[in-house]
């Protein structure tokens, strides 16, 4: 059976798509198939092989064998060389990868070209530089030589979401590989294609078979099996808080594998009346919610504006939000593509309905765009109260709730009125306020006078129910390391 398929995109780009499961450096059949949809049109792109118990076992076995068969004790320089080589190939094939990403996810092609694919390469290169810089400590103790070794964990599972398929894949595999773990990644069944294309590049780069395995499957099937597998020593999950709980439960019920979670958010974006440049604050705030059609875990989905500038802010924000094309992702003018799926589309529209029902004012948008594909207008709600669903629950769409505040104590209390704690932002020209407020905010990332600035060398992760563990930067290595202490008695 053929495990590739040809596809021509709406802008005429010819693609050869991999549709098999990527196990042990080969593309193989699964137990069933899943259709993946083009969210810009609602049409089926192709069917891909799906992993069930047999295939999850095969992938974990392959990773296990590769780990003990040489990857665990591999030369750091060799791991670095392979990771750099893969980054080279990603950069060589950036057009192809970006086109697959836009086809399967719907994000504007220029975003895939400028952010997603370069992000994958940048992540690989950053962590390639880490492989030979793993240091333990020597600790002075009486009569002993005591030292720590930082060892890899083993077979690491990764379950990744559909909002930034390639970038999310790289956030998992790069630190894991740097620390000489092997990986089994379950992609989202909504966006399997770009990771499978990466499989071809993994082979071309020369990675030994079994080091990186990529399987498509349903969360409640392949994802659950991976989270429960006795030979998987660690699971890293990015997705909803609800599923994060299930992952933790699965680990608790099986081998207590280590768990890191990157979950949801309802991040507060706080604009004080002493902003130096209101237009800039509006620019960042708009990026903060509408980037990637609102499908960002750290989206600034609640905006708090100090009352003195509230009217001005609303006027400017509304104008900016209304500008820019929502539509064809291949059009260079498009700034927002579709929501990922029909189900997500319905969900976001449902929240818009609930906002209206609960008495908020829909100041802008609130409607579908066009009649094919899952496009939603940039939407603004004002006159909100903190207990409304649209202020409490993660919508994961282009819908922002804006409210006003008087003073700093009030806004921090409102900002904290959430179970989440992924990110936050502060807009102010006051040095004291910037530092004080960022100190007080319970969030894993605080942006000052910007939003959604994420780089591979700065850690990212949540407080509270937004998760645990950090991705990016050397901090991420902690997730893929276990520490052994050795104490040699020398009887001095």
């Amino acid at each position, binding site marked *: 059976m053929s495990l590739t398929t040809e596809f021509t995109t709406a802008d005429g780009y010819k693609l050869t798509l991999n549709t098999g499961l990527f196990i042990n450096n080969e593309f193989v059949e699964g137990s069933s198939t899943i259709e993946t949809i083009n969210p810009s049109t609602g049409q089926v792109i192709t069917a891909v092989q799906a992993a069930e118990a047999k295939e999850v076992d095969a992938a974990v076995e392959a990773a296990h064998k590769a780990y003990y068969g040489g990857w665990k004790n591999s030369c*750091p*320089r060799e791991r*670095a060389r392979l990771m*750099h080589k893969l980054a080279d190939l990603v950069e060589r094939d950036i057009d192809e990868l970006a086109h697959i990403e836009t086809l399967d996810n719907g994000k504007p092609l220029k975003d895939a070209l400028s952010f997603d694919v370069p992000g994958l390469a*940048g992540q690989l*290169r*950053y962590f*390639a*530089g*880490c*492989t*030979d*810089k793993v*240091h333990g400590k020597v600790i002075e103790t009486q009569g002993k*030589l005591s030292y720590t070794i930082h060892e890899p964990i083993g077979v690491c599972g990764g379950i990744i979401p559909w909002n930034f398929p390639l970038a999310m894949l790289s956030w998992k595999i790069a630190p894991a590989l740097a620390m000489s773990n092997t990986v089994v990644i379950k992609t989202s069944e909504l966006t399997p294609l770009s990771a499978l294309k990466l499989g071809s590049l993994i082979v071309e780069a020369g990675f030994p078979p079994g080091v990186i395995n990529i399987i498509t499957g349903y969360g409640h099937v392949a994802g659950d099996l991976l989270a429960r597998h006795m030979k998987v020593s660690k699971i890293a999950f990015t997705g909803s808080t609800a599923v994060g709980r299930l992952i933790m439960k699965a680990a608790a019920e099986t081998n207590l594998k280590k768990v890191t979670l990157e979950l949801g958010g309802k991040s507060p974006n706080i604009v004080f009346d002493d902003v130096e440049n209101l237009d800039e604050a509006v620019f960042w705030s708009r990026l903060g919610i509408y980037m990637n059609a609102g499908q960002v875990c750290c989206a600034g989905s609640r905006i708090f504006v100090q009352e003195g500038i509230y009217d001005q802010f609303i006027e400017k924000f509304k104008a900016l939000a209304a500008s820019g094309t929502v539509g064809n992702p291949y059009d260079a003018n498009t700034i927002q593509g579709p929501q990922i799926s029909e189900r997500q589309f319905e969900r976001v529209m449902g929240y818009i309905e609930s906002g209206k029902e609960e008495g908020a004012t829909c100041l802008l948008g609130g409607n579908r765009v066009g009649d094919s594909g899952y496009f939603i207008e940039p939407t603004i709600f004002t006159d909100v109260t903190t207990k409304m669903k649209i202020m409490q629950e993660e919508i994961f769409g282009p819908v922002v709730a804006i409210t006003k505040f008087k003073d700093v104590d009030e806004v921090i209390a409102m900002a904290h009125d959430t179970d989440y704690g992924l990110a936050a932002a502060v807009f102010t020209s006051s*040095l*004291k306020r910037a*530092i*004080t407020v960022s*100190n007080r905010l319970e969030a894993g990332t605080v942006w000052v006078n910007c939003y959604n600035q994420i780089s*591979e*060398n700065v850690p990212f992760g949540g407080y509270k129910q937004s998760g645990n563990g950090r991705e990016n930067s*050397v901090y991420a290595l902690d997730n893929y390391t276990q520490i052994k202490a050795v104490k*040699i008695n*020398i*009887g*001095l």
Partner: protein
Amino acid sequence: MVQPDLQTVRLSNGKEITVHTQLFINNEFVPGHGPLIETINPATEEVICSVHSADKQDVDAAVNAAATCFKDTWRKVAPAEKARLIHKLADLMERDRDELATLDALDNGKAFTVARDVDITDSIACYRYFAGWADKIHGKTIDTTFDKLCYTRHEALGVVGAVIPWNYPTMMAAWKFAPALAAGNCIVMKTSEITPLPAYKFAALVKEAGFPAGVVNIITGYGHTTGSFLGSHPLVSKMAFTGSTATGRKIMESSSSSNLKKLQLELGGKSAQIVCADADLDKAAEWSCGGIFNNHGQSCNAGSRILVHESVHDQFLELFIKHTKAMIKIGDPFDEDTFQGPQISKGQFEKILNYIEIGKKEGAIVSYGGKRWGNKGYYIEPTVFTNCHNQMRVMREEIFGPVVVIAKFKTIEEAIDIANDSDYGLAGGVYTTDLDTAITVTNEVKTGTMWVNCFDVFDQSTPFGGYKQSGFGKELGKYALQEYTQVKVVKILRSSKI
């Protein structure tokens, strides 16, 4: 008539290569105002060609180019971009590996196969290792009082001066360039006037890789002129020097009388290899042989004293000589089989032969070698002295040639004392199968590196640098970054109350 930059040079096998001979300043090859210096092929004693050297105005030009580039350009280049450039440079070195190795072998006399498989290979690895640090240089936030935000920045120094020796021309350049660039500095490097050719070829690769003009500047000249101008320049924030202890003192003096520039000194050594009674003698003999005779004994960390437990001395000596005979094939650097080429220069050649005479006069016995090899080129036989004691000059002074001195010891404590009875403290080694002995000896011997059951083993990620008069500061490893950064602490008070 100003000598043009490119010169054609003929190798012993008849091949011709083109070399750069002008100073590399601000991404251009420019004539120098110092004298033309002849560089000699130590295998043939013949002149290879002449190179331009830098006088004071050239040093000024190079330093100013570096200072301007740092202020206007290099410090604004993102760390990940710096890493990319350094990786590109390493890619180009890989592409031109054979050419670089040829120049090292031609100008220094080391075997081409060694230059290619050790010097150039390790240099490339060094650049790649430090490229990976460029975007990982972290300060800290430090909790003090509730009303302050305190953090440190690890900032680049600015313009760094480097003076490198002739024993590993490309590799010694890498050990300075790689961490300096990763930490964000601009550099002016003075190569040894004895081996100027490899770095000028490297300079062409720097330009090809796309480094902005002024980041890397390479000049050559005599130590007492060019080196001295660099060492006393007020715009140079730091001098990194590898060479003799005597010159190290001069560098320190010139810093003290100019701008108190920061210093890093990698100086001489007289490292002791201790062979215990319970050692695997054959392996110890093999490792210790390489430990002294690698690079024709021209290593600061050469294991030039071997201390052997009296009970195994004769057995060890026999094995050592056996390994010396098997390992050391002397010959033309471009012969595939050659292990040992000539010593670097006439001056060094005569100095080493003189030490051999001194040793004999002091009562040491030549158990192997002891003379010149052949009658053309500065070749000296690997030489083994026995019946030595630690007060002999040949046991105390750095010979920097293929001459090893062997002495006996009775107890481990005695061996440790002998090893420590030196003004130097660069490296050392111990051969033993006993865990306690290994840990005790490595704890007690006062050197910057202690090898156990091996010698002369280097990794890019482990630091190297001496104790005592072997110098201070570390090269390689994360520790090297400290030498090329300065720490600023920022303390922001955010309370309006006093």
